[in-house]
């Protein structure tokens, strides 16, 4: 039988039992559409994370203390050994040893409750120098930045994240007002622009001079230069010199820490590219996980197709006998049943792609638990999903078709 006839015969047979075909199709539609939708969500998350990191500027390098500090030290700024000091940071400003470093912004962290009158909120704060805002691409909405004079004076001044400001002061402009952090009174000198939607959101944070954080809030002691740091933010002179700057930082710190050639770094340097790659790797796993879960439903759909095809072969035994008696070869019967299975899964695949596409399209921008879901639809995923649904038809259709083709014509004809 030629392919055209095969297809029209398959349409006839599948169309003869529309409800059954429809229900069988539904399994495939659900499988394929969930693959498409899941992948769109996964890819959307991946891309948005990447772009949010990129907003910080790809020339940012973060140095955190501790050899085995987590790669995500970046988030909390925490290694576990106190090996980065303010002096380390200052030494990176050296034009000779670190020519590709443009800006150095050390930071440490503190936490505590911030209180204004009866309002209070728990904050994770950052102790900074004046360079911090530029390093982190932040800007002041009103008031001023923390100056290096504030740092030297161990001034009790604070710059508030927009959310903290709103929680404590409502719609009032807090600049000039006072608040208590861990029972010490601070003067608010500025408020940050909201950075909602970025990955390192400072909105819920309070910035104070780095010395103040150390001596006043963390009850630190010691000399000014020996203040231990959570991390050092370094900007390369340009995006193209990130790797050079990284080398500079490493060289300087290894010298300062007197590490022998065979000793590992006791600090961790993370570029934005590293972070993006790590996160993309994590997200990639996530996408694969989502995809596999969806793939399982496609598999279940395929089993449904096989089930129906087996029923169909049994029901149509006599038809098979008739076809064989008038000249159908075994392979004609084989192809006929495979074609029917593929027709169902292919049709299911097309509907599934359309449905998945629609879900991804209308789901884009929806919020779940306060998170905005972004979806990215990729054509190649749709094409792969279609291909897979055809393969599912072939795979699950072949066994029933082989059973049909191997029937003995006389016995098939005698079947009631």
């Amino acid at each position, binding site marked *: *039988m*030629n392919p055209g*006839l095969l297809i029209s*015969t398959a349409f*006839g047979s599948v169309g*003869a039992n529309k409800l059954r075909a429809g229900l069988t199709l539904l399994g495939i539609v659900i499988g394929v559409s969930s693959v498409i939708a899941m992948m769109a969500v996964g890819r959307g998350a991946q891309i948005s994370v990447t772009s949010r990191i990129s907003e910080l500027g790809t020339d940012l390098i973060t140095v955190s203390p501790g050899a085995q500090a987590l790669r995500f030290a970046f988030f909390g700024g925490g290694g576990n050994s106190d090996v980065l000091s303010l002096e380390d940071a200052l030494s990176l400003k050296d034009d000779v040893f670190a020519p590709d470093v443009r800006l150095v912004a050390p930071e440490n962290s503190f936490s505590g409750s911030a209180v204004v009158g009866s309002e209070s909120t728990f904050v994770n704060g950052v102790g900074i120098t004046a360079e911090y805002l530029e390093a982190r691409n932040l800007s002041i909405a009103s008031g001023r930045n923390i100056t290096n004079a504030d740092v030297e004076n161990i001034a009790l001044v604070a710059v508030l994240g927009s959310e903290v400001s709103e929680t404590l002061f409502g719609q009032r402009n807090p600049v000039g007002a006072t608040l208590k952090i861990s029972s010490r009174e601070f003067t608010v000198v500025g408020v940050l622009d909201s950075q909602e939607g970025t990955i390192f959101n400072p909105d819920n944070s309070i910035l104070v001079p780095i010395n103040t954080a150390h001596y006043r809030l963390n009850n630190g002691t010691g000399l000014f230069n020996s203040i231990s740091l959570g991390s050092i933010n370094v900007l390369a002179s340009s995006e193209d010199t990130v790797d050079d700057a990284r080398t500079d930082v490493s060289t300087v710190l290894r010298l300062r820490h007197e590490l022998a050639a065979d000793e590992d770094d006791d600090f961790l340097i993370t570029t934005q590219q590293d972070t993006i790659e790590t996160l993309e790797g994590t997200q990639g796993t996530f996408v694969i996980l989502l995809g596999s879960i969806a793939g399982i439903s496609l598999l279940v759909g395929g089993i449904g197709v096989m089930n129906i095809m087996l029923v169909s072969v049994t029901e149509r035994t*006599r*038809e098979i*006998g*008739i*076809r*064989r*008696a*008038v*000249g*159908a*070869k*075994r*392979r*004609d019967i084989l192809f006929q049943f495979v074609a029917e299975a593929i027709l169902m899964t292919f049709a299911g695949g097309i509907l599934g792609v359309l449905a998945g596409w629609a879900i991804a399209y209308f789901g884009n921008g929806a919020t779940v638990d306060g998170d905005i879901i972004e979806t990215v639809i990729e054509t190649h995923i749709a094409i792969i999903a279609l291909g897979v649904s055809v393969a599912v038809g072939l795979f699950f259709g072949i066994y029933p078709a082989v059973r049909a083709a191997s029937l003995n*014509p*006389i016995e098939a*004809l005698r079947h009631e």
Partner: protein
Amino acid sequence: MTSGTPTPVIELTNVSREFQLGTHSVRALDGISLTIQLGEMVAIIGPSGSGKSTLMNTLGCLDQPSSGVFVLNGQNVSDLSDNQLAETRSHQLGFVFQSYNLLPRETALSNVELPLKYSGGIKGKDRRAAARAALDRVGLSERYDHRPMQMSGGEQQRVAIARALVRNPELILADEPTGNLDSKSSAEVIEMLRSLNEDDGKTIVVVTHDPEVAEAAKRIIAFRDGQIVEDRPIDHPTDSVTDETNENAE
């Protein structure tokens, strides 16, 4: 009547067919030797279980003998592959079943077209033209688009005959074609087969319990217990006898 040197269409030599049923075996055909020439019309009769259908299935290349030789149109059938058997079924013979065996969802026309679909290389237009011609030949010009359910038993059996004819084979095999029909429909079918033999020169082998069908044939072969117990020609001396038979059938 065909004249000249006879051409054998069917040659059976010592053909047996055994079925294994658990521990014991049934000999449905027991050493049959038989030759049927081109243009013959042969009726096969015999009691139930005597092996008539088994013989027809063998002749129709649907079943293979356990032993012995079956030569169809000069070709030893046991040498054929499964695919070649399928081709032989569609090219060299047409089979008519007691229970019509039409595809219930398909129209008369597409049922008749079916063997052509498996022949390959025939255009849809030509297939349909051939199917119409075959339906016209059996007098069903008005029934092209009817489905089996919408036709009488006799009409369905004529559709089945048209399907057997559509590839224009020399040999038509019919296993109790009137077994499910009332006497009027039977008469139509018998007349159809007789005419295909007389007018179109088809070789016809028909299994029947119906004496009228046997009467229409030119040769009767009687079966019992898988063996041929009688094989004799029937004389149809004059047309008047035929007319008389037809009148009796009314």
